[in-house]
């Protein structure tokens, strides 16, 4: 039995890096410290895809890596418009090969931000993002706002490590010296912990942000008695808490990105932070879901100029979420092949979009079988990043952390699978004298 320390969790955007494991016979037998229930489940492992496979007559037939990779390359090479989607649960080293593959094919590359914090990225396009690393929050923040987010369920370590409950330099007393406001449409587990719970009407976040901004800018006179189901008195109370704080941190989740004005909700949340900054130190951060969804945004941006929904069909990058984003391509029936890596649109895309995924050839690269496997024509199992493969990831605050390799495996890492597909495609192109 070996104890392994400083293990980095490859589950959610918190990327906790102080995990202690016990490893025996190339198996993680115990999570001793650091991981939440969600992270622990990942570390202890799930049933894996056993072998590469190709669908024939409706059934998946097991095959070699070579055969599956060759078939995948053929599908992509023949395509006029393929979608390379996913990327948020793998490392940046794989992302880089992904961008190269996209460029080589003239394909469209999109990542899961498109169905979680894509709207946040679009908002940053318009107004920027006043933010900070999570350690700043831990050391300084005396007012925490969770808006449309339920970290108690979705980011179980977040409050403890970084925000409401954590202790830091100027926050020695932990939550004793802090206040927490939760804004949500329902009384979640997180809401139950809040000093102030603002229950808004579903889909009305936008106007509530605008009202708060008007108040923070000295125009409470124009704000009506009730906005989005929230009484004006409560808006004034929250605005006062902001004004009286030394450091206010707003975290927001998919409660805001998935609804109503979508990305413009986030523009308004950021504008609220800018208005708050006139009175105090104010920062804001999206609660990123997958452990490296921030990373795929980063890699795509430095390599192509754009964070997601990138169309390389003309040989250079054209960016327009809502046009090239994965759900749109599928909903509109725009693409003729798809490669899905390190994600699961089968479970997370609207049914209306899945109908097209069912029609076109699909390649899946993933350690685990999932609903997407039902659509896949080629299945290529991969090593689990953070357990069987190392590499760089970006935490939700864009702090880069290196995942460690804990166990040995015969499964290929994503990077190598992609590199081999790319090599096959280039060989095909050369053969045809293109």
């Amino acid at each position, binding site marked *: 039995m070996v104890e392994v*320390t*400083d293990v*980095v969790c490859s589950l959610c955007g918190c990327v906790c*890096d*102080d995990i202690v494991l016990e490893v025996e016979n190339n198996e993680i037998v115990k999570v001793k410290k650091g991981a939440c229930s969600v992270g622990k489940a990942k570390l202890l492992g799930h049933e894996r895809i056993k072998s590469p496979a190709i669908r024939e007559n409706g059934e998946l037939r097991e095959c070699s890596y070579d055969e599956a990779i060759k078939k995948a390359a053929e599908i992509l090479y023949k395509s006029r418009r393929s979608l390379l989607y996913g990327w948020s649960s793998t490392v*940046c080293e794989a992302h*880089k090969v992904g961008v*190269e593959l996209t*460029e080589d094919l003239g394909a469209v590359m999109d990542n899961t931000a498109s169905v979680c914090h894509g709207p946040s*990225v679009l908002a*940053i*396009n318009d*107004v*920027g*993002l*006043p*933010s*900070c*690393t*999570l*350690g*700043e929050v*831990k*050391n*300084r923040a005396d007012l925490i706002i969770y808006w449309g987010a339920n970290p108690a369920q979705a980011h179980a370590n977040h409050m403890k*490590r*970084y925000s409401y409950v954590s*202790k*830091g*330099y*100027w926050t020695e007393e932990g939550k004793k010296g802090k206040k927490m406001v939760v804004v949500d449409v329902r009384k979640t587990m997180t809401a139950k912990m809040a000093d102030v719970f603002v229950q808004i009407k579903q889909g009305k976040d936008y106007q509530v942000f605008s009202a708060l901004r008007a108040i923070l800018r000295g125009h409470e006179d124009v704000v009506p008695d009730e906005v989005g189901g929230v009484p004006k008195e409560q808006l004034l109370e929250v605005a006062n808490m902001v004004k009286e704080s*030394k*450091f206010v941190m707003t975290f927001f989740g998919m409660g805001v990105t998935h609804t109503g004005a979508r990305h413009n909700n986030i523009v308004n949340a950021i504008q609220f932070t*800018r208005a708050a*900054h006139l009175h*105090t*130190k104010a*920062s804001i951060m999206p609660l990123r879901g997958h452990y490296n969804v921030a990373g795929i*945004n*980063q890699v795509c*941006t*430095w*390599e*192509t*100029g*754009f*964070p997601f929904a990138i169309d*390389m069909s003309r*040989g*250079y*990058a054209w*960016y327009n979420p809502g046009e090239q984003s994965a759900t749109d391509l599928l909903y509109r029936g725009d693409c003729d092949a798809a490669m899905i890596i390190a994600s699961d649109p089968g479970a997370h895309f609207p049914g209306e979009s899945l109908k097209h995924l069912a029609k076109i050839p699909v390649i899946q690269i993933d350690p685990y079988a999932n609903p997407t496997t039902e659509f896949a024509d080629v299945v290529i199992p991969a090593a689990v990043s953070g357990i069987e493969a*190392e590499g*760089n990831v*970006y935490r939700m605050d*864009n*702090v*880069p*952390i*290196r995942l460690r390799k804990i166990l040995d495996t015969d499964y290929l890492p994503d990077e190598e699978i992609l590199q081999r597909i790319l090599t096959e495609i280039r060989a095909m192109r050369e053969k045809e004298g293109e």
Partner: protein
Amino acid sequence: MADELLIRNGVVYDPINGVKGEKKDICIRDGKVVDSVTNPKVIDAEGRVVMPGGVDIHSHIAGGKVNAGRIMRPEDERKGVEPKTKVCRAQSGYSVPNTFATGYRYARMGYTFVMEAAMPPLAARHTHEEMVDIPILDNAAMPLIDNNWMTMEYVKSGDTDLLAAYIAWMMKATKGYAVKVVNPGGTEAWGWGKNCNLNDTVPYFDVTPAEIIKGLAEANEKFEMPHSIHVHGNMLGHPGNYEMTKDTYDVVKGIKPYRDRPTMHATHTQFHSYGGTTWGNFESKADAIADYINENDHMSIDLGSVILGDTTTMTADGPMEYSLYQITGRKWTNHDVELETGTGITPFLYSGKVSVHTIQWAIGQELALLVKDPWKVALTTDHPNAGPFIGYPIIISHLMSKKRRDESAEAMHKAIFDRAALPSIDREYDLNEIAIITRGMTAKTLGLHEHGKGHLGVGADADVAIYDMSPEERDAGKIQKAFLNTKYTIKGGQIVVKDGEVVATPPGRTIFVTPECDDKLTDEMLVTLKDKFAKYYSVTFNNYPVQDAYLPNPYEIKAPWRSS
């Protein structure tokens, strides 16, 4: 067989070796300059200008801040798009180009080394990930060590040796090159939305920015560091800041550098040479700063010269970016980094129709023209802060042509004639001086000349730029054109640009400095540092240092502890 190249009959400008426009052959074997070659491939450079590969001392090309600028500005990325070619990856962006475009465009201007000017230590992995993705260029990055709590605590207690031990650990942990200082104390104060003047007390830390600068300069000289501390002072971009700039220079005046180099490099000096008390009576004080540099030998500067047009400003100086955003109301990104530093980013349009911008435009060039010794001055635009690096040829053409400057000034806001000195300056740079401020001085100031950069002596890296112009050329437009796209750029003996087109994209190397520190000192420092990690950082001590995997092509420079 050895890989040989002969550049024949070029007019060579190699200031470090005292070569000022001599007709000379350059012999290259296996990536290095040699005495002679036997069976080389020949490049005929007859009548053309030949220089060592350009060395940029200060540019923001990689890392979290640059990428945040890109994410914030798809409207900038849509400019300058070029499709992939057989050799090149797809390109995007103007003021914040993608990594590939950054490498290609620098190489096309004849540059082969670029210093990334600001690396937040906690995000050092990010900087390295991007640098690896910049083709062709050798590079290095300077970690920010001035607003670090460890630094401020050691400055307060006066433990210079322990501060030196911390610097050594940080250089190794970040694979960094030199100590970078950005608004010392002010960026920490920005954690609370505040800022600091040179002699203000930093909230909660009971030290002044002046003390931080002095402490870091002293600690830096404990080692044989190739570069001095690299300083972006307090109150950047504020009217009337030139006095504080001079006071900042005075702080390190008595400190003896380990060898023949300055004790402090003051960066993007244009932004620190402002007179007046408001934007209304704003004026150039480049003359006062130039006088100081002329009278003192412990300083070097770079210009931060303005390129007119839209750009993306970005710096660790969070409060400064906030003030700028307050003026423009445009988009604004801020990213404070726990225990260490910060970042601010906002777009900015320099317009020749606006009095302040016109004066800013003049100041950068005035500094170059009023500082008598070009070995004290480097050409930069503080890319992309005063403008993108692809504007360098514009500045070169202005420095070399009074006529060009007069024509430009004529089309600009009249304030340039009242509140700037530029129109009254007659000096014109010659090609030797251009070679100094773009390679000789920069390589020497960074200490890279001892590692093959910035010159063409035997043993130097075979990094060569051949410009398609005659040394007699006086037409500013033709000079600008020649410096934008080389006839040839050779990197490590390989032709990477031919006739202005990128023809090969070898990977560059990452150069880093390893200061060597006594174990006992290090151990004592680590007790304090590990406590900081346990209590205040959001990552663990063991996950913090940059792993070797991030530097596939490393080049290490050791900096021994000075015995005396």
